[in-house]
């Protein structure tokens, strides 16, 4: 997994609440059996004017000029600024895959849906919760200044604006550790293989009906 320690990048404003994972990546693109290549279809229904299909060359599709990612100033954005309950709905990990594939490293919002929040960390994406007033301000600053950038430091748990103002954020230690080091958490868990086996053995005693396939 891609590690993230510090990141500085252009901010793109996604100014609507309850952005669901169907909106981030519509279902017709979930038929892929790969993890990559979802970037061109990120926010497909907002970004293009036609109905997206998995086999299209997206560079030839009619784009929606009003959608922010189609505006030159946001095309190279790597920090997504969002509203309440970002990533609600389906558990599809294709949503963080699409955001990552597009080039995002960080998402900032007042709140995230639980499953999406968790999925981000598995894919080198850092979701940051900041309070609504700060997020409001960042929206205003982003829209006011072309090329507006934020600097994120995961070690220090800070977001810093171009004027040098810093906000701190919370993130749990395990997720932070894995993301800072780009760790595969399966490998970390398997270090406890003996503990898992011991638990399993005791469950076989106390709840034997949980073992052995039926059918």
């Amino acid at each position, binding site marked *: 997994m891609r590690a993230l320690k510090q990141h500085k990048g252009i901010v793109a404003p996604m100014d609507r*609440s*309850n952005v*669901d994972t*169907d*909106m981030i990546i*519509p*279902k*017709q693109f*979930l*038929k892929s*059996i*790969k*993890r990559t290549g979802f970037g061109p279809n990120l926010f497909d*229904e907002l970004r293009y004017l036609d*109905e*997206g299909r*998995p*086999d299209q060359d997206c560079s030839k599709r009619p784009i929606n000029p009003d959608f922010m990612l189609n505006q030159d100033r946001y095309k190279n954005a790597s920090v997504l600024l969002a*509203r*309440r*309950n970002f990533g*609600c*709905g*389906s*558990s*599809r*990990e294709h949503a963080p895959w699409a955001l990552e594939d597009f080039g995002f490293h960080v998402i900032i919002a007042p*709140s*995230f*849906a*639980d*499953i999406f929040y*968790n*999925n981000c960390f*598995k*894919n080198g994406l850092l979701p940051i919760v900041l309070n609504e007033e700060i997020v409001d301000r960042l929206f205003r600053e982003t829209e006011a200044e072309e090329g507006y950038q934020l600097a994120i430091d995961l070690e220090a748990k800070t977001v810093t604006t171009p004027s040098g103002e810093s906000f701190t954020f919370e993130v*749990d*230690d*395990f*997720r932070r550790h894995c993301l800072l080091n780009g760790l*595969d*958490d*399966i490998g970390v*868990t*398997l270090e*406890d*293989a003996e*503990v*898992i086996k011991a*638990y*399993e053995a005791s*469950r076989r005693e106390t*709840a*034997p*009906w*949980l073992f*052995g*396939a*039926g*059918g």
Partner: protein
Amino acid sequence: MAGKTLYDKLWDDHLVKQRDDGSALIYIDRHLLHEVTSPQAFEGLRLAGRKPWRLDANLATPDHNVPTTDRARGVEGIVDPVSRIQVETLDKNCDEFGILEFKMMDQRQGIVHVIGPEQGATLPGMSIVCGDSHTSTHGAFGCLAHGIGTSEVEHVLATQCLVQQKMKNMLVKVNGKLGAGITGKDVVLAVIGKIGTAGGTGYAIEFGGEAIRDLSMEARMTICNMSIEAGARVGMVAVDQTTIDYVKDRPFAPKGDMRDKAIEYWKTLHSDDEAVFDKVVELEGSEVMPQVSWGTSPEMVAGVGGHVPDPDAEADPIKREGIVRALKYMGLTPKMPITDIKLDRVFIGSCTNGRIEDLREAAAVVKGHKVSPTLKQAMVVPGSGLVKVQAEQEGLDKIFIEAGLEWRDPGCSMCLAMNADKLGQGEHCASTSNRNFEGRQGFGGRTHLVSPAMAAAAAINGHFVDVREMMN
């Protein structure tokens, strides 16, 4: 000492290791797999040279992409080549790794969240995960059940565990009795309307109270299924005799002495009287009306006797903007009566409402009536092959077909429109599914979430009506 909630008990029983950094390793008893969120996980195992930790904990079936018509040619007959490859990939992966799969042509195939309980593969007290957010369904059995992403599917395959942080406890208590004609779907939509789509974020919700205790397992599953639409990954109902009776004699369920021992444990799966919840929400059962969603988020609901809201009456600017956007997408005008919403299609099915009881409720409404000629289509998609067989034994298929509804093969179908079943642009659909997001049921499609009985009543009338008027 304070008592434990049901969630606390399930957490403690599955705790393998509490780590110093606050995270915990939680053991997974049952892992359900389907074709959409598993291919990259199997590929990950292969690349790392890993094997599944415990084969008998896994059960797979294709559901999202499968056709609901004409399966005569089997998987080869799936017209969309990308869908076909995904179903074939699941078959190949399960064969290669030795995982039990109910393949598309197996009578036991169906939506994962329907077949788990149907087979007794879902048992009280289990921890159950699946790469699908509606895994919360299984919480109806007093299970710790929730959706996971594909990286976690791989993690569970490889280690039989998940790295988790404990959630907070919320009790949603539905007091008293529900009115006649009010279903589990109406209850859960009313709850989401009350607490909002992020109201349950960070919480495990337990549904309790007299109205919940009175419900069947099917209705409890509908309620837990949509916990995620309130933001809660986990929704649960305590185990009682209804639960124990439902599980009895199912293929994967324990028999004989083992069953007695299991029941002894299952009976402990309820919150203690003195348990403390971080948040309690109460509803009066008698006040729950048949619900209809008017917007593009499941919290945008109203009673069937109500009206589409007026955005000008909303004080919160972000919410107001959301209402304006939703009404524009839905093609509705502020303050119009819900019963004036005209429909193009009706969909009865999904992991929310594709079980036998749902089909019985819908059939009872349409019996002796005809689908409105103003409708383009009304379809019934059973949740599994076995639900289909049972419905046919009860003659429900004939009632639907005579009324002019299509009788289909099992799968997720138009709930998320990954197969050929979808809405056209601008079409309104009365749907028993779980999400009314923009484009969910097809590009530009407009979804109204309702119960099976309300969908059936809408099919007959071509617009929403209060189903209770048809029952009199």
